[in-house]
């Protein structure tokens, strides 16, 4: 058994690349956000096809151009966004997993659909843990995100794995407009008219969206008061005094003062994470 760690060298990356797992959940009491993968559904698939543990660390990528060179054999998986993948310069488009030999280069091309790509690796990336999680987060983990020139450690494999063919990754689940939500704790502050506007309208994803939150372009003018600050979670939809709807995501602070009007279902958090600016959603009350 080869116990020395392999390294994947980041030859190039655009901003927005980070190591993520399911995040940290026992430190919210001192104000530390959970962080973790934006789209848990795709992440689970990326680990499942490699038979990894369910909390294994992956690379979360949001832009084309990422280039990695691996120094020992391993196996990769891809899920989330639909992306063009090159292995040593040749287009790769078969299967869920990709066997890597020493010195192989993997490069990402165009993003066809979706916002976040998950690159799983056999046994997970072996980066440092902070508060029981490997998720990058500013001022908590040593690395805030991953940059060109960085190395990502992993445990190499010795034998080619035998895999049963698993169904190919399908992206249709995030392509429709419907976002399933529950009434948030402050839902009852909305009058009937505002509730109808929220449920009948369509809302466009704005360019103001990142790992902290997704702002929607279409406004919901209101006269709701600002409230005492109370807990919020990924998937909480806040309504600001200016009428802006903000869907809080994984890096959002653990409390907030705007009315919390909806709470997305777990699957819909993954779905809205994969929406790109300009795409449209509608809310369906559960």
């Amino acid at each position, binding site marked *: 058994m080869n116990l020395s760690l392999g390294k994947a060298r980041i030859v190039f990356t655009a901003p927005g690349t980070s190591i993520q797992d399911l995040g940290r959940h026992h430190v919210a009491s*001192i*104000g*530390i956000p959970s962080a973790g993968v934006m789209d848990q559904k795709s992440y689970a698939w990326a680990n499942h096809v490699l038979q990894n543990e369910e909390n294994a660390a992956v690379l979360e990528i949001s832009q084309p151009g990422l280039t990695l060179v691996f120094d020992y054999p391993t196996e990769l998986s891809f899920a989330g966004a639909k992306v063009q993948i090159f292995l040593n310069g040749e287009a790769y488009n078969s299967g869920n997993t990709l066997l890597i030999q020493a010195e192989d280069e993997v490069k990402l091309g165009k993003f066809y659909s979706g916002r976040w790509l998950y690159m799983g690796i056999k046994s997970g990336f072996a980066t440092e843990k902070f508060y029981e999680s490997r998720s990058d987060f500013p001022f908590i983990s040593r690395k805030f995100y991953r940059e060109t020139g960085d190395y990502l450690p992993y445990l190499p494999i010795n034998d080619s794995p035998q895999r049963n063919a698993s169904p190919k990754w399908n992206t249709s689940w995030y392509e429709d407009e419907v976002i399933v939500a529950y009434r948030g*704790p402050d839902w009852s502050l909305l009058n009937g008219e505002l509730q109808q506007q929220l449920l009948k309208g369509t809302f466009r994803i704005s360019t103001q969206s990142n790992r902290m939150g997704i702002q929607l372009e279409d406004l919901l003018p209101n006269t709701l008061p*600002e409230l*005492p600050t109370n*807990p919020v979670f990924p998937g909480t939809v806040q309504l600001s005094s200016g009428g802006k709807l903000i869907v809080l995501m994984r890096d959002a602070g653990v409390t907030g003062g705007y009315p919390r009007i909806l709470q997305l*279902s777990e699957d819909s958090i993954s779905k809205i994470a994969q929406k790109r600016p300009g795409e449209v959603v509608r809310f369906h009350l559960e």
Partner: protein
Amino acid sequence: MKPSYIQITPNLGELLWKLPPSDELLALQLAYMDFLQTDWADELHSLRLGFTRISLQWKSSISQEKFNRLVPNHQMSPKPLSKKVWEIPVCYALELGEDLNELAKEKHMSVEELITLHTSPTYRIHFFGFLPGFFYLNGLHPLLHAPRKPIPRLSVPSGSVAIGGSQTGIYPRESPGGWHLIGQSPVVLFDPQRSSPVWAKSGDQVKFMPIDLAKFQSWSYDIPTFYLS
């Protein structure tokens, strides 16, 4: 002062009190936090405290149903609040409190009066949020309440002491922010290298202690001192 419980999703719910934030309410909330952390720990994924709510994330919807049936009839005695008062040094120099002059003018008071109003109360720490190590305080004098700035600053320096709405607080690190900056503290509010990254706890108290610029610049203690009230 029994709370009600609302189920938000199959796995998420909230204990809520229809009361404004106060020491009495906090003492009840902390009693509930202790109770939940001992009696329901195995069934809870996480717990979060706010000014008037406690949010409960359940591992399963069955646990939440069980809680919803049992707990609303529960009578809880308040937990006595901590007697610790942290003395936090703050330099209210105009160089560090960029909005000090303007805010005093808006409030029709002198800068000295504003500083006196800010340093006289003993504030209560309710919970942490917004940024790692940022504590939410109750007790700001109503004369100092001020709506947040219409356009937030892109960068507020670490340690900034600020007022926003009915709140006052200290930015534990550099961050964007919409509050009025009135000073800066040299202490470290959050240090991930320490085994416990924050020195204060929910229920502790805070008193701001004015220091001059020379003292601010030569300050060398990361953790403030405290006394018992």
